[in-house]
């Protein structure tokens, strides 16, 4: 089951009756049990891997030995045939046939050990991933649950002595008023600064047409043009 499916199941199971417990302690215990199971499976797989690897090594040595035997018989039979020792050669040939069957069996067993080792390694890797995924899930569930509990606490803290929760609408209104007050305060502070620096008088004089507004590029250019014509 996917993580979200698990969470959703837990939510539907407990969500409404208990009014918002995200996942109950039972849910976390189940996840923790899953981790323990996965870890145990991993330990089991690791133990099997050591056993199989030991067997594989033993079998590898056995196969090597059998091959060496076979090589020896092979040399022997060639020599015997050179010496025309038909009787002993026949006996050796029978031995070779026997050892060849033995070798074939041993190689088959060795192959199966190699396959088992590959399988066990995959299992260990997968259970390792599973343990990590489960640990992540628990961690997320716990922090989400904490966020939920915190939400309830906050709701209670701001609900005052009444049982009904403070409305978000009212809070928003209050925050906006506070913001407006701040803005007004800043505006009047700026106004004060302007007045004390004499900028306010200048503004009044400009609007009364007594003095001209600040020089701009155009007016400076005009001034120079006039000066040039006069020169």
């Amino acid at each position, binding site marked *: 089951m996917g993580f979200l499916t698990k969470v959703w199941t837990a939510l539907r199971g407990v*969500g409404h009756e208990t*009014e*918002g*417990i*995200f996942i109950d302690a039972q849910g976390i215990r189940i996840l923790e049990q899953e981790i323990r199971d996965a870890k145990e499976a991993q330990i089991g797989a690791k133990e099997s891997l050591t056993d199989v690897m030991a067997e594989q090594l033993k079998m590898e040595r056995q196969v090597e030995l059998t091959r060496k035997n076979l090589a020896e018989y092979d040399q022997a039979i060639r020599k015997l045939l050179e010496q025309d020792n038909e009787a002993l050669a026949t006996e050796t040939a029978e031995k070779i046939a026997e050892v060849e069957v033995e070798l074939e069996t041993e190689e088959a067993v060795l192959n199966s050990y190699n396959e088992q080792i590959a399988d066990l390694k995959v299992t260990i890797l997968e259970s390792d991933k599973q343990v990590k995924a489960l*640990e*992540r899930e628990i*961690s*997320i569930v*716990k*922090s*989400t*649950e*904490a*966020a*939920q*509990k*915190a*939400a*309830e606490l*906050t*709701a209670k803290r*701001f609900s005052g002595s009444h049982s009904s*929760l*403070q*409305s*978000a*609408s009212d*809070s*928003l209104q*209050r*925050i906006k008023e*506070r*913001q407006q007050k*701040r803005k007004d305060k800043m505006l009047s502070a700026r106004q004060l600064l302007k007045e004390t620096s004499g900028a306010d008088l200048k503004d009044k004089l400009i609007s009364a047409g007594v003095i001209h507004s600040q020089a701009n590029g155009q007016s400076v250019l005009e001034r120079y043009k006039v000066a040039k014509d006069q020169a």
Partner: protein
Amino acid sequence: MLEVLERVHQAVNKQITIDGTHLRSNIDVTSETPMLTVIREDREEFPILVTASIDQILCNAVLFDEKQIKEGRQIEINEMMLQLNMAMPLSSFAKTGQYYSVFGALATESIDKNILLEIEMLSDNVIDALEVMNPFLI
């Protein structure tokens, strides 16, 4: 996960936002899962609660209880949240139990600058969201 929260606390506490208001935060270690509360001085009604897990830092601000939605308007408000979700910068809408909230998730490795940005943006999103949803609220 306490050390992650301490880092968030360092990044956020006593910082001043773009519009000149102060943030303050404090860590509550009394509960089973430690939690950080961040409050913007002019929006103390909507504290941001920060928790940490292995992978992520979760910042959550409760908007309202579902009981505060006007009779018969809940489906509209749910639809609105889904429609607006992608347009909301850095945060998303969520519902846990009966509480609607705005939250943001960060990687635990996030740098201080990004943590602060997340928190400031989340706080702005709370106000923005309440404004657009106000007609549906009691």
